[in-house]
C-alpha cells in the first residue's frame, strides 16, 4: 500500500482509453463501477473532444455482485455493439472488475459477435497508464496486422523500383502532450524528404488500417512510451526497422532526418539545408546572453525529459541541475542523460519528493509537467510545461508542436518566456526608486491599479525574530535596493551567514560579506 496525493499517471485502463479514443471505428467495453466513468471528462474537458470517448462501462453495483455480473457484461457488450456498430471491440476490466474475475475476454468471445473482439489484460495493481496504452496498442496491432505476417524467416522483398519509400507513424494517442501538432509537423517533414506516410496509429487509424501496417518500409516511433513495444514486434514480424530518434529540438530533428534518410535510402541534404528553425540564430543573438548557465530542472515522461534536458543544455546554453521522470521504465535513459550533464537523476512518482528536490536545487527555470508547474508557482520559479500529464492549457488553439523545426521554435518561445518575465522584473527592480516603479505597482500588463508609492517604506527585514540576527536600519535600506524577486533569497542568505558567523547585528558590511560568500 502506498500513499498517493497527486499522481502522474492514471490506471492502465485509462491508457487503453487513450488508444481507443484516438482511433476510429473501435469501441471499448469496460467492466467497471459507475465512478470510473469520470475518465470520460479527461477527453471531453481536457482535450475538449466534441464527442464522448468510444467507451461503454458496465457500471455494476454492489447488489449486482451477488448475482451475475458476467451476464451484465455480456448484455452491455451486446447493446454497445448494436448501438455503435464498430469495426472491432476491445474488452477489459478496471481495477474493481479485475478483483471479481469475470474474464471479459472469455465472455466477449461467447457472444459470437460478427466482428473481432480484442481482450485486454491490464493488471491495475501493478501497472499504470503509459504501460496500459502501450500494451493496448500492441494487442491491437498483433490482432489486426498479425494475420498478414509473412512466414517466419522470409526476408522482406525489396521496394519496387520507382516507388516512393514509405513509413508508418506510431505512437500518437488521445490526451497526448501536443500529439495533434507533432503528427502534422512530422508528416510535413517526411513529405519534404519524399517519404510516403502509410498509416498513422493509433491516432486516426481504424482497425482495418492496422492490418496494413506491415506494408510500409519502416516505422517512425514518435512516442516510445506507447509505440516502442509495438515497433519491436513489427520489426521482428515484418522486418520493418524503426527510428530511434525522437525529433525534439534542432539537433534531434537533424539526427532524425539523417536516420529516416538512411532507412529510406535517400539523400537527406535537401531537407537538412531546407527551412531551418529560428532557434539556432535566436540562441546566438546577443540578447540571449543572459540565458547562459541558467539553472534548470527537468521532469516529465522519459522521452520528453531526456529530450528537454539535451535541448536545454545544447541549444539554450542552460545548466541542467536536475533531470527526472515519473516513469520507471525510462529510468536508464534518464540516468544516462543526467550523467552526461553532471546532474542528479530523480526517478520518482512521488510528487512531494519532486517538490522537495526542486526546493533544494533552487533552479531558475523548471521544465516539467502540470504538476511541476504548480510546484514552481508556489516556489516562485518560472516554468514551462514539456510533458504529460496534460491539462486543458496543453491543448492550445494555435499550432504548437514540440517536434521538428517548428517544434523547436515553439520550445524557444515557451521556455524563454518565463525567463523574460524575470528579466522585465529585474529592469523594474533597477528603477525601483522611480516614482512610477515601486513595490506597490502591479505588473503593467495586468492593468492592476498602481497604489501610491509608500512614503514610509515598510521594513522588509524588520521581522527581527527574537533568536535571529537583527538588521541595522542602513542594512535594511540596502537590502531594499536588491531587486524584489531575489530579495527574499538575499535576506535568507545574509541571515544564515550571520548565524553561522555569530554575527548578532547585520550591517551593510555583513550584507556584502554574505553576498561574496554565496557568490557562485
Amino acid at each position, binding site marked *: *500500500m502506498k500513499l498517493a496525493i*497527486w499522481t502522474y499517471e492514471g490506471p492502465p485502463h485509462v491508457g487503453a482509453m487513450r488508444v481507443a479514443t484516438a482511433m476510429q471505428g473501435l469501441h471499448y467495453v469496460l467492466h467497471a*463501477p459507475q*465512478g470510473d466513468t469520470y475518465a470520460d471528462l479527461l477527453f471531453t474537458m481536457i482535450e475538449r473532444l466534441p464527442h464522448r470517448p468510444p467507451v461503454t462501462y458496465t457500471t455494476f453495483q454492489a447488489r449486482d455482485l451477488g448475482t451475475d455480473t458476467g451476464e451484465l457484461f455480456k448484455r452491455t457488450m451486446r447493446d454497445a455493439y448494436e448501438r455503435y456498430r464498430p469495426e472491432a471491440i476491445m474488452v477489459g476490466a478496471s481495477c474493481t472488475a479485475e478483483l471479481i474475475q469475470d474474464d471479459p475476454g472469455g465472455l466477449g468471445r461467447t457472444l459470437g459477435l460478427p466482428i473481432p473482439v480484442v481482450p485486454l489484460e491490464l493488471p*491495475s495493481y501493478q501497472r499504470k497508464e503509459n504501460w496500459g496504452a502501450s500494451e493496448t496498442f500492441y494487442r491491437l496491432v498483433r490482432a489486426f496486422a498479425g494475420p498478414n505476417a509473412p512466414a517466419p524467416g522470409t526476408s522482406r522483398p525489396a521496394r519496387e523500383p520507382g516507388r516512393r519509400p514509405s513509413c508508418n507513424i506510431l505512437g500518437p494517442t488521445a490526451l497526448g502532450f501536443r500529439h495533434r501538432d507533432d503528427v502534422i509537423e512530422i508528416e510535413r517533414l517526411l513529405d519534404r524528404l519524399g517519404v510516403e506516410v502509410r498509416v498513422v496509429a493509433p491516432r486516426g487509424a481504424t482497425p482495418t488500417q492496422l492490418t496494413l501496417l506491415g506494408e510500409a518500409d519502416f516505422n517512425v516511433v514518435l512516442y516510445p512510451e506507447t509505440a516502442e513495444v509495438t515497433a519491436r514486434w513489427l520489426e521482428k514480424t515484418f522486418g520493418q526497422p524503426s527510428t530511434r530518434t525522437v525529433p525534439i529540438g534542432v539537433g534531434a530533428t537533424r539526427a532524425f532526418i539523417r536516420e529516416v534518410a538512411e532507412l529510406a535510402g535517400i539523400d537527406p541534404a535537401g531537407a537538412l539545408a531546407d527551412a531551418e528553425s529560428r532557434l539556432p540564430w535566436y540562441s546566438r543573438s546577443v540578447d540571449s546572453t543572459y540565458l547562459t548557465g541558467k539553472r534548470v530542472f527537468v521532469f516529465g515522461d522519459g522521452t520528453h525529459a531526456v529530450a528537454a534536458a539535451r535541448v536545454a543544455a545544447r541549444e539554450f546554453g542552460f545548466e541542467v541541475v536536475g533531470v527526472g521522470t515519473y516513469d520507471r521504465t525510462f529510468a536508464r535513459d534518464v540516468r544516462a542523460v543526467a550523467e552526461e550533464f553532471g546532474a542528479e537523476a530523480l526517478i520518482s512518482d512521488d510528487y512531494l519528493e519532486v517538490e522537495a528536490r526542486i526546493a533544494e536545487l533552487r533552479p531558475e527555470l523548471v521544465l516539467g509537467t502540470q504538476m511541476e508547474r504548480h510546484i514552481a508557482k508556489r516556489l516562485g520559479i518560472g516554468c514551462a510545461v514539456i510533458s504529460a500529464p496534460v*491539462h486543458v492549457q496543453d491543448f492550445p488553439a494555435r499550432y504548437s508542436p514540440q517536434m521538428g523545426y517548428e517544434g523547436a521554435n515553439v520550445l524557444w518561445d515557451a521556455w524563454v518566456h518565463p525567463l523574460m518575465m524575470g528579466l522585465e522584473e529585474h529592469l523594474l527592480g533597477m528603477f525601483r526608486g522611480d516614482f512610477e516603479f515601486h513595490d506597490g505597482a502591479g505588473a503593467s500588463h495586468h492593468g492592476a491599479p498602481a497604489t501610491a508609492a509608500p512614503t514610509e517604506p515598510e521594513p522588509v527585514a524588520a521581522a527581527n525574530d527574537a533568536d535571529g540576527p537583527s538588521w541595522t536600519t542602513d542594512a535594511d535600506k540596502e537590502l531594499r535596493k536588491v531587486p524584489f524577486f531575489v530579495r527574499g533569497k538575499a535576506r535568507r542568505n545574509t541571515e544564515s551567514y550571520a548565524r553561522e558567523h555569530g554575527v548578532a547585528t547585520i550591517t551593510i558590511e555583513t550584507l556584502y560579506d554574505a553576498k561574496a560568500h554565496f557568490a557562485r
Partner: protein
Amino acid sequence: MSTAIRTAQNPLDATGCGDAPVLRERGQREVFCGLTGIIWLHRKIQDAFFLIVGSRTCAHLMQSAAGVMIFAEPRFATAIIDDRDLAGLADANDELDAVVDKLLDRRPDIKLLFLVGSCPSEVIKLDLSRAASRLSRRFAPRVRILNYSGSGIETTFTQGEDNCLASMVPEMPASPAGAPASLLVVGTLADVVEDQLRRRFDELGIGPVGFLPPRRAGELPAVGPATRMLLAQPYLAETARLLEERGAQRLEAPFPLGVEGTTLWLKAAADAFGVPAERFERVTERPRQRAEAAVARYRDTMAGLSVFFFPDSQLEIPLARFLARELGMRPIEVGTPYLHRSHMAADLALLPSGTTLSEGQDVDRQLDRCHAAAPDLVVCGLGLANPLEAAGLATKWSIELVFTPIQGYEQAADLAELFARPLARRRRLEV
C-alpha cells in the same frame, strides 16, 4: 421513526409531481462515485483528513474531479492497494496502519481521520470499521478515526457525503434530558451561507442551532428527542435515518434553493419553534424581496425555456422546482440518481405536473431522449457537456451546483445566473 413534522403550508393545492410515475432505468450510469464528496467535505471540516483506501483509479478520479491541484498537500490522499496487499489480508491491515502512522506523524494538525472505503477495498472485504476502531484506540485522544464508504458500487456522488455524515452521528453528544428544543441543520453548506442562515435564525429567535458537519471536528452538535432537524441537502437519507433513531424529528420543507424554497424552509423551522407569523414576516421580508427582485431580472430571458436534467447530485428535483416556479422554465425530464420520496415530497409537490421523472440511468437512452426533446438547456455532468454542446445544445455543468454557494436568499440570484450564463453566452457569440 420517520414521520416528519409537516408544518410548511403548501402554497399550491395541486399535488404537482407528488404521485407522478417514475421512469426507472438500469443501464450505464455516467456519474461520479461517493469519493468525490471529499472535495467539498475536506474544505468544510477544517481539521479532518480523508484517507481513501483504494486503487490508482480512485486517486486519479479525485485528481481529475478536483480539476486543479490547488493545494500542495490537500487534506485527502489515497492509500493505493497493490499486488502485495491482495496476496493476504493481514498484510493489508498492517500496511494500512503503517500508512496512517506516517500520515498522522506528518500532519499533527489532523484531529479527525476518515478511512474512506472504495470499490476495491470493499470487494476484497478489507474491514475499515475494524481498522478505524483499532487505530482510534492507538491515537486517542489526539485523533478520532471514523470510516465510511464512498465506493462506486455503494454510493453515487453525493451519497458519499451522506455516508460521511452518517459516520459522525454516533459521535454526536446526547443532548441532556429535558433540554429545550434545538435546531440541527444537516448537510454541507458553504461557510458564507451557514453564517447567513445562522443570523436569520437568530433574528427569528430560533436557537440553539447546530450544523452538521461542523467546521471543526470538536464542534459536533448534540442530538436528542428535542432536536428538530432541517435538511439543507437532499441526499441525506442515511444520516437523517440515524438522527431520527437518536430522537431528532425532521421538519418537512422544500430545500432552501431559490426564494420560495428558502422561505418555506425557514418557515418550517419558525413554525416548529412557535415563531409568530408577524415576526417571521418582519425578519424575512427584506431579504426575501431583495432576492425576489434579483431573481426576477432573469425571468424575462428564461421564462418558457425548456430544461432537461441528467442525474447527478440528487439536487435535480429542487433545482427543477426553482427553475419552473421562479424563472418560469419548463422541466422536460428530471433525472435523479436516487429518489427519496419522503425527503423530496415538498419539492415534488411544487414541480409542475407532466414533468418526466427518471431514477437511475441508462445514459445512451437518456441521450436519445434528450436529443429528441431538444431542450433549451441541459444540466449534465462534465463527461457529457461538450459532446452535447457540439450537437448544438446549451449545457450547464451540474458539478458547479455542488461547489458553488447556492442556498438561501442571498444566493438565489447567483443560482439563477448559473443557469442563465450558458444561454447568455450563446446569445453573445457570433462564431
